[in-house]
């Protein structure tokens, strides 16, 4: 039996997290949920996920710091998708320069996210 791809989802909006968890689990992925950047870093270190989805603005550790940790400290090449809100264009550029692979501006369609996840996990 093929093992499920693990995805760490770092998002502080609990309703959105639940919505995406429901949608991505339906597509056959295993979701590991983090409510802030600190939890996300812990999950990435302990669970070795295949993909990380992170919001930029989060309590304790921001999405940018999560990307930096994954790329520089853990030296992992796993794909990272970033969520950003309107007015965070500068942050998105920083996220790409730190090593993010894709970004989605809020509001976004969960179906589109599934397409991007599928593409990155090819």
């Amino acid at each position: 039996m093929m093992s499920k791809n693990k995805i760490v989802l770092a998002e502080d909006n609990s309703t959105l997290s639940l919505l995406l968890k429901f949608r991505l689990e339906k597509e056959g992925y295993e979701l590991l949920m983090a409510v802030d950047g600190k939890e996300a870093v812990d999950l990435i270190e302990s669970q070795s996920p295949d993909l990380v989805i992170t919001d930029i603005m989060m309590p304790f550790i921001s999405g940018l710091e999560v990307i930096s940790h994954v790329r520089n400290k853990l030296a992992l090449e796993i794909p990272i998708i970033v969520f950003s809100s309107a007015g965070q264009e500068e942050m998105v550029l920083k996220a790409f320069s730190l090593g993010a692979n894709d970004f989605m501006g809020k509001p976004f369609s969960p179906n589109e996210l599934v397409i991007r996840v599928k593409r990155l996990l090819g």
Partner: protein
Amino acid sequence: MIDYQYFIDHFEEFPFLVQLVWRISVVLFLTIILLTIYLKVIRYHLRKKENEYKTFKKEYEALLVEYLYADKENEQISNEQQSIILKIKTHIPIKYKRKMVISVLYNLMNEVSGEMADSIKTLYYQTGLIDYALTRLKNKNWFVIAKGIGELRRFKVEEAHDEVAKFIKHPKNEVRKETQLYLVNLFRFEGLSFLNELKTPLSEWAQLQLLEVLQKFDDQQICDIKPWLKSKNDTVVLFALKLAQIYNQFEVKDILIELLSHKEKEIRICVIEVLTNLYGIEAKEMLKTNFNQLSIEEQLSFFKLLENLVDPSDETFIEQHLFHKNFEIQLLALKILKTINIDKFLSLNKLRSNKEVPEMYKFANNS
């Protein structure tokens, strides 16, 4: 009993002041005990309420997700969705639960787009939350009305236009501001029609909020701003000038020129900025010709804009104002001269007639 009597007798032998201090200490001690108990009770209730809130939020979030994915292609609202609506409806009459439902719906509506956002809006209608927001508009307290309008704006309830538009002349600024935001958020440039009759001032903050909303829209087809440029309300004129500049309203040139003689200095300064931004060289020549008729602030404003529009043909004009009575204009003239004719600028070092020039020259040279 004897012991107590002994203490009472002993206490009564104390001087009055000592007795008073003891009495106050006992009262304070009892008050502290009572307040501690009261605090404990309040904390217990708050924690209980918080736990209830968290439990309900979890339960409600699960219901909401279930509702959003229970969409059936052929049906507008599926049976599954209908039963979820009924379940949520039972909680709505309780105020804190209603508040929570609204906040969860709104937070999610901001994060997702397309059909899902439409489904959230449908849920807002179907659960009857819209009726509570509309009821708020009939409240006698202005802050309840403002909150109601804000909610209708956030959930994009266009149907409430007539009910909300009534508040555009409300005596409370907060209510007027919410009404303006509602109209512009939902009806874009058409929503700005309230400016036609606006008598109250439109604050700088309100103007910025409206501009921010307008810039979010894909359709940037602006309506006719001429009536607002001619408004008797100065803040409306200032707002229209901002619109003219942002949306490149070249067709309002004649009105802008008329506004150069407006009674309000702030408007005249703003007009100079808009004219120079829209018409560049053409406006520059016009303002150069009328330069002496302008006030010091207007002249300064023109010089600031001239910094970006200057070309070698302006040299004579700049030279004429190197010894202007206003210090800032002198400095700007020097700086501009440096950019268009460095040799002439360097030759100014030899000037000693005006004591300020060498210092100012050094500053302009280093900047």
